[in-house]
């Protein structure tokens, strides 16, 4: 895929970026009093053309809110972008109206979700729903669009696509529905695909198929991808670069090899340490104590400090910022200046 230095240059010199998110803060109304809390805060990242950026985090980390903000799909009554900018091919998206956003979605950027059963309309055939997208965005006639839908189903490896195009969503298996979802998302050849936990609901042998398919299609069509997942194993398989999120903030961004070989934020290291690994035998897991704090009751200072084995009194003093420690590697930690911090603990 992309050489590792690609994204770095991209963030330094503007033109090579496809998507540039800066200081994005999205808030939601909660409870009876309508008080707003920030689901994500000061989120910044960029995606270069053809690149795969994985956003990884546990529940409540804000990874899905980030993607919905980019797509302009926040629930209109309760969610809004409070600050920040989202630039796609240099064009500011946060100020676009619904009609303009609709023109971009599907055509330029497109999204697939975890559960394709709820993303398809159960009363229309798969073919009709894909054709509808093509008619809308590519101004083709319905018959041509339907023919294209068959081609798309063939492209994503659905056997007997000509027959399957007339299937209703419930007539397909979970894996096949996810393929159909991918076919729909890619039918207008977007430059950016956002995949939100696309394989989480699938069995592991089917997940392997879908991941191979996505990687293959991405290489063939040259599109960029934001891959949202909680599974570090999946991250290792698909990503060029990784953003790790925790409690609404990005806490580390780095090329994929660095995230796994030399994580610098204690949370990233702890998350890797808590994973059961195939072949590790009965080695004891090293869990992270406690749980992710609810967004309404975040601790003062570093949000991870309550669970961090490296926390010191000063971690409560102020919020750490996301600092660049080397080209392409950003870390949010007060103690990041102590380079062998994590290595010492590992040995």
């Amino acid at each position, binding site marked *: 895929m992309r050489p590792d230095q690609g994204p770095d240059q991209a963030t330094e010199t503007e033109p090579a970026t496809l998507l540039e998110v800066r200081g994005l803060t999205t808030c939601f109304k909660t409870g009876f009093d309508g008080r707003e809390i920030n689901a994500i805060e000061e989120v910044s990242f960029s995606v270069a053309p053809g690149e795969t950026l994985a956003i990884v985090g*546990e*529940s409540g980390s804000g990874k899905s809110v980030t993607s919905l903000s980019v797509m302009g799909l926040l629930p209109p009554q309760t969610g809004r972008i409070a600050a920040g900018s989202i630039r796609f091919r240099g064009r500011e998206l946060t100020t676009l109206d619904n009609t303009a956003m609709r023109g971009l979605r599907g055509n330029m950027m497109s999204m697939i979700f975890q559960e394709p059963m709820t993303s398809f309309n159960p009363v229309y055939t798969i073919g009709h729903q894909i054709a509808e997208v093509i008619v809308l965005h590519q101004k083709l006639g319905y018959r041509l669009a339907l023919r294209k839908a068959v081609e798309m189903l063939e492209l994503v490896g659905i*056997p007997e696509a000509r027959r399957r195009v007339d299937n209703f969503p419930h007539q397909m*298996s*979970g*894996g*096949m529905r996810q393929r159909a979802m991918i076919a729909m998302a890619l039918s207008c050849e977007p430059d950016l695909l956002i995949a939100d936990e696309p394989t989480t609901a699938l*069995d*592991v*042998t*089917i*997940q*392997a*198929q879908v*991941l*191979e398919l996505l990687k293959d299609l991405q290489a063939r069509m040259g599109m960029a991808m934001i891959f949202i997942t*909680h*599974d*570090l*194993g*999946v*991250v*290792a*398989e698909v*990503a060029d670069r990784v953003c790790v999120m925790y409690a609404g903030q990005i806490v580390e961004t780095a090329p*994929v*090899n660095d995230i*796994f*070989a030399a994580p610098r934020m204690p949370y990233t290291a*702890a*998350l*890797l340490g*808590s*994973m*059961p*690994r*195939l*072949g*590790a*035998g*009965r*080695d*004891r*897991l*090293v*869990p*992270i*104590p406690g*749980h*992710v704090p609810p967004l309404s009751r975040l601790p003062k200072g570093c949000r991870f400090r309550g*669970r961090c084995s490296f926390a010191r009194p000063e971690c409560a003093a102020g919020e750490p910022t996301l600092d660049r420690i080397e080209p392409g590697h950003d870390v949010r930690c007060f103690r990041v200046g102590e380079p062998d911090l994590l290595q010492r603990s590992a040995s």
Partner: protein
Amino acid sequence: MFDDKRTETAPGEPLLRVRNLRKHFPVGGGPFRRPPVAVKAIDDISFEIAQGEVVGLVGESGSGKTTVGRTILRLTEPTSGQILFDGQDVAALTPRQMRAQRKRMQIVFQDPDASLNPRETIRQAIGRALRIHRIGTGADREDRIVALLEQVGLSGDYIDRYPYEFSGGQRQRIGIARALAVEPEFIVADEPVSALDVSVQAQVINLMDDLTQRLNLTMLFIAHDLAVVEHISDRVIVMYLGKIMEIAPSQTLYDAPRHPYTRALMSAVPRPDPTIKRQRTLLQGDIPSPINPPSGCVFRSRCPSAGPECASIIPPLEQVGPGHYSACVKNRQFG
């Protein structure tokens, strides 16, 4: 030192012996429909679990793994076969005898949100288990509940709290405490960590590991995640479409899987190491519907090594090594 004791295979008498267990669910039927057909959720499986042993049961959707767990406790009635627990056939017990039997056999469910009543405090939820099984009285019960909470790493002060006041990981600890309340010998854990975040999942896995050792529990640990299962189990049973494909000690299963399905499953698990560029055995197609499974070997429709003979022979589970069994007609070739 604990590990040494546990990696020995099957010491002593088996506590649980499952023989030719079948569970068929009728589907379809009705006045204007074709006659009902049977989904063979479990189709003639046999295995044993030794006293003090943790056996993992893995499989994908439709493998029947959850039905196995539920049938052993008779939360689902078996169609045929024997479930011998400590020599007694659980499948033949009357409902009243079964209730008494459940003091010895308990289950931990996947989703503590669905298995804990939201309107009951912890005291009520666990207290009911004690009351039904006539364990302790009044004040003694409170001490027991506090001790149970502490045993699963929660503060005894939480006794009058409601489930919503806890995080997902804490709720699963409560589910475990409730199962342990009647001091069972045997526990079925049905995907107990699947709904939890990775960092919390590790806490609960370690807790279950500690408890099984400390209380000398015997456990059937059901999960779809091979890495989790391998981590906690002494032996692993791999199921596919209602049949057992392979049984092996954990380490053997990882080092030398014999069945083509186990091999494919193993190679499909994403590894957290971006530098591995491995050759994958990518299985083609979907898991067939359990209503209409392939003839002969149920795995043959997706098997990379299937031959014509696989369509006609139902491969029996054969021993291929110490404590290692595989159900494949090509067992000898794969040695």
